[in-house]
């Protein structure tokens, strides 16, 4: 018996990943091979032991309660509260004034809530793009598409993103396209273009614009990084880098110019 089952086959066998045909072949071999039968048993035993031992940590009840509370609180803004349409206008001026004041207060309150939500979401977006940029630097891995050629990088995203974009041919001095990654921001697919400006690295994130979002031009700082952004009719574009703001703005300007407005 020379052709023993490979370790991959043994694993697939105990994980229930073999097709009917592969399973039949494996069973036939196991019937005649003690060594492989022993190996299969060992892998199966290990899997069972892992399954038991792996269930080690139990969520504290406080966490469960907190999550329940958090979910109910988070879902409140999405609920549509019935407007008090039954209220009838009376002829009383005082009542009318109270209603107007109350209405104004409600409007301002809702506007403030919406603004707060928007600024919270914006802050979360900044944190997430910063984290992604740092993770890219820390991973020290080559980009998923490694090329300085825009005609290679752009087509690589075909079929991977539900939108398209343009890359500038001319770049500012010392600026070079290094490649790109497909990544996710807020669970939406995003193109992460990687540039180098001198020895600095820049991540430029391009994502499809959502109906309600409308990022106007901005330049801000977070954790020592410059973050610049703008939006076109269809895209939101945010760049993160530790390069100085002027050079980051120069790159963003080039990217903006080539987008279809």
């Amino acid at each position, binding site marked *: 018996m020379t052709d023993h089952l490979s370790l991959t086959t043994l694993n697939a066998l105990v994980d229930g990943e073999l097709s009917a045909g592969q399973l039949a072949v494996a069973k036939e071999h196991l019937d005649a091979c003690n060594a492989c039968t022993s190996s299969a048993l060992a892998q199966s035993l290990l899997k069972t032991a892992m399954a038991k031992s792996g269930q080690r940590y139990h969520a504290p009840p406080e966490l469960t309660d907190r999550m*329940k509370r958090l979910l109910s609180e988070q879902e409140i803004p999405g609920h549509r509260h019935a407007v008090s349409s039954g209220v009838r206008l009376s002829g009383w001026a005082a009542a009318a004034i109270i209603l107007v004041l109350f209405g104004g207060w409600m409007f301002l309150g809702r506007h403030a809530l919406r603004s707060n939500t928007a600024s919270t979401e914006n802050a979360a977006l900044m944190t997430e793009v910063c984290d992604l940029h740092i993770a890219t630097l820390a991973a020290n891995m080559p980009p998923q598409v490694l090329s300085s050629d825009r005609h290679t990088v752009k087509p690589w995203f075909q079929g991977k993103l539900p939108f398209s974009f343009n890359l500038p041919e001319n770049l500012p001095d010392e600026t070079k396209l290094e490649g790109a990654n497909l990544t996710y921001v807020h669970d939406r697919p995003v193109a992460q273009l990687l540039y180098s400006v001198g020895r600095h690295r820049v991540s430029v994130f391009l994502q499809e614009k959502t109906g309600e979002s409308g990022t106007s031009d901005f330049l801000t700082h977070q954790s020592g990084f410059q973050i610049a952004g703008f939006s076109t009719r269809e895209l939101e574009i945010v760049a993160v880098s530790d390069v100085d703001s002027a050079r980051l703005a120069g790159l963003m300007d080039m990217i903006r110019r080539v987008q279809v407005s």
Partner: protein
Amino acid sequence: MTLLPWRRKLHEDAPVASSFEDLALPLLPALYNLAFWLARNAHDAEDLVQETFLKALRGFSGFEEGTNFKAWIFRILRNTYLTSRSGLAALRTVALEDELGEQGESGQVIYREGAIERQTPELNLMRLGDRAAIQDAMEKLPPPLLEVVLLCDVEEMKYKEIATILEIPIGTVMSRIARARGLLRRELQANSMFSRDFRA
């Protein structure tokens, strides 16, 4: 390349049959268990789970009903971990694919074919259900190997689901599983021999 199985729907206001709470809360124990294994402490694990829930809730309108919610939320947890402090530290210290020198993608060289004997000491440990020894061995696995065996053995996910969550090809899932189990066996064997020597 197949991707975006939960691709955002164009009609974001389409009615959602199952509420987020109904789908997510039953998975909290499993999410917490994985988060703790990855983060290695309760505080970070709780933060990870909470952030995962918030992100998932925010993106729930884009979740395609009828697709795999468990894989979807586990992927969010895993991506959240990768950008967390402990995840970044793990990324810095592990260059997994570089360490695959002793075996190919098929993961066939850790043990010679048919070389696993019935009465090896690590098998005895497994038979005895020595949880502590197995958990010690699991703790020594690099995070990319640990997460793959946790998803496969504890969460009983299929290779395809694991590949989707970890954003790696199925072949890499298979090689990581082979490598993880090989390392576990080796660690259990070393542990068992040490115990025997110590007792003697």
